[in-house]
């Protein structure tokens, strides 16, 4: 375990020094499907109800060690509730759950000793300074100061916060707070890292820095479990994901496979103005494999988007704007639920 953590820095340095490029996303995502790895999380028929509301409805999944596993779905889909049950801070209504062979409900403290948790809302200790946050959090795991002091400095380096070590928490930007929360979650060298909406509310640059940090962890063999409602995030970080809606699993697979199975290769996006979008559908019948009418645009799913656009113009239709793009997980979600992810 300690080898994994010390290599955090080593990999970081090698990436700077060595002339060979670091593994590309596709290479490491293949390694995520190694069947020889032990299962670290196993959920069977997991259900959670609050009164009449069923937040998580009979879901099952297994996560092998080292995989980056995503839960993709809109707000209220049951992602956070699932995360809470994994952490043992919420009790399931029925089903079984095993984290590294232990039930988090009866072995909460022991399971959490192996977990790192990045909650949806930062809950840093505002009364403590940046470095103190890391050390005090490590004390909650019962770790000795002789280990925590160098570890805190190493993690500050990793989170690019070394020069903020003695700042107050409320002096940090949103992106810095998020990185500190992630650094804090790594203080106990967790085998599994739970990330609940890790980049929500961050600007694009802060998101890319964060993704880079998470990618390094993944390369070091940390199992990542993340919830997100951003398709690009899921595509960047997840080897495999489940699409969740209303507490149920709608689909499961790698981002590429899900797109292949549930969507066409390309999408033609057309805008005819908000009044015509709704009625233009009839005139577009027969073009592409499938047609989706949204309030602000019309989506035509086709293997060849350019060819579909030619067919549209051949019918004498003149869209205000047109865009051909690759299918994304957003399209998969739309197909599976009939709704957009971000509403």
């Amino acid at each position, binding site marked *: 375990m*300690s080898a994994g953590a010390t290599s955090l820095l080593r990999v970081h340095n090698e990436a700077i020094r060595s002339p060979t490029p670091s593994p590309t996303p596709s290479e490491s995502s293949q390694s995520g499907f190694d069947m020889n790895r032990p299962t670290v999380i196993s959920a069977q028929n997991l259900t959670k109800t609050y009164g009449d509301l069923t937040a998580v409805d009979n879901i099952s999944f297994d996560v092998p060690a080292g995989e980056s596993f995503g839960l993709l779905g809109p707000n209220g889909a049951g992602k956070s509730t699932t995360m809470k049950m994994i952490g043992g801070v919420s009790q399931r209504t029925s089903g079984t759950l095993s984290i590294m062979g232990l039930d988090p409900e009866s*072995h909460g403290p022991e399971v959490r000793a192996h977990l790192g948790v990045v909650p949806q809302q930062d809950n840093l*200790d505002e*009364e*403590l300074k940046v470095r103190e946050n890391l050390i005090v959090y490590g*004390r*909650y795991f019962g770790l000795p100061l002789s280990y925590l002091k160098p570890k805190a400095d190493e993690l500050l380096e990793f989170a690019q916060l070394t020069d903020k070590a003695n700042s107050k928490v409320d002096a940090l930007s949103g992106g810095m707070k998020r990185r500190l929360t992630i650094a804090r979650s790594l203080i106990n060298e967790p085998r599994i890292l739970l990330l609940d909406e890790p980049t929500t509310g961050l600007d694009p640059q802060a998101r890319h820095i964060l993704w880079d940090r998470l990618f390094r962890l993944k390369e070091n063999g940390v199992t990542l479990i993340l919830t997100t409602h951003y398709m690009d995030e899921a595509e960047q970080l997840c080897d495999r994901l489940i699409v969740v809606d209303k507490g149920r699993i709608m689909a499961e697979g790698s981002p590429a496979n899900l797109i292949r199975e549930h969507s066409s290769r390309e999408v033609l996006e057309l805008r005819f103005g908000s009044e015509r979008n709704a009625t233009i559908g009839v005139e577009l019948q027969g073009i592409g494999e499938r047609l989706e009418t949204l309030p602000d645009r019309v989506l035509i799913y086709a293997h060849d988007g350019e060819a579909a656009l030619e067919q549209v113009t051949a019918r004498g239709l003149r869209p205000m704007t047109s865009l051909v793009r690759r299918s994304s997980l957003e399209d998969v979600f739309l197909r599976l639920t009939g709704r957009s992810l971000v509403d």
Partner: protein
Amino acid sequence: MSVLTGGHSATDLARERKFGPLYSRNAKAVVGRGLMAAKSSTWLVMVSGFFEPVLFLLAMGVGMGSIVGTVQGPGGEEISYAAYIAPALLAVSAMNGAIYDFTWNVFFKMNFAKLYQGMLYTSLGPLDVAIGEIFLALLRGLLYATGFTAVMGVMGLITSWWAILVIPAAVLIAFGFASFGMGITSFMKTFQQMDWINFFLLPMFLFSATFYPLSVYPQVIQWFIQAMPLWHGVELLRQISVGSFSPATAIHVGYYLVMIALGIMLTTGRLRQLFLK
């Protein structure tokens, strides 16, 4: 591997215990956090907590005391009015300190700072958090009680060496209110509900024989006051301050021991409901 030994031993112990999911024998980490936080931010609040009973003592004891003169103490002896109300003010201060810590402070940390949420995602269980917070409150109570007793000494209000025992007795009173306060706060969801606590505390402060003897009330009201926790604290500290003990002393101490036991049961039950739902 070796670096994690500390964490594992704590959690292995937890597994063998009945309170496994609630307790990991690491309340000292919560205490450590409190001391580190106190070092940087809340010392001003703490100083004001010390001055409050001192100001009351000056205004009521010295100021009003000058027209009251001497009154009859617990053993029948004549003592100055300031010496009469000083132990009562210490009891009130122990109560207020504990209540402040376990209502507003805990309410804020629970609902706004999300501090406990963060703690509970570590190896800590809710019982570690509760024990740690109670310990911190008692440590603060100990500091206040020591400071106030020193002020009493300087003002010449202490006539017996027994008076040194008001310090641990004040901590006992704080413990009683703290163990109950945390359980009660866990029911509160809004600031309006928090005000109900003050609605209960203020009359208890004014009417628990704090400023005059219980004998001024009709019998029925006396019984009611005697059922309230603060009266037992006031009487206990008043007896200790002059070194005049009676069988009632044991009853006062017993009242707080029972209050502590019931309060811990309530708090543990509530933590179980809140955090293991």
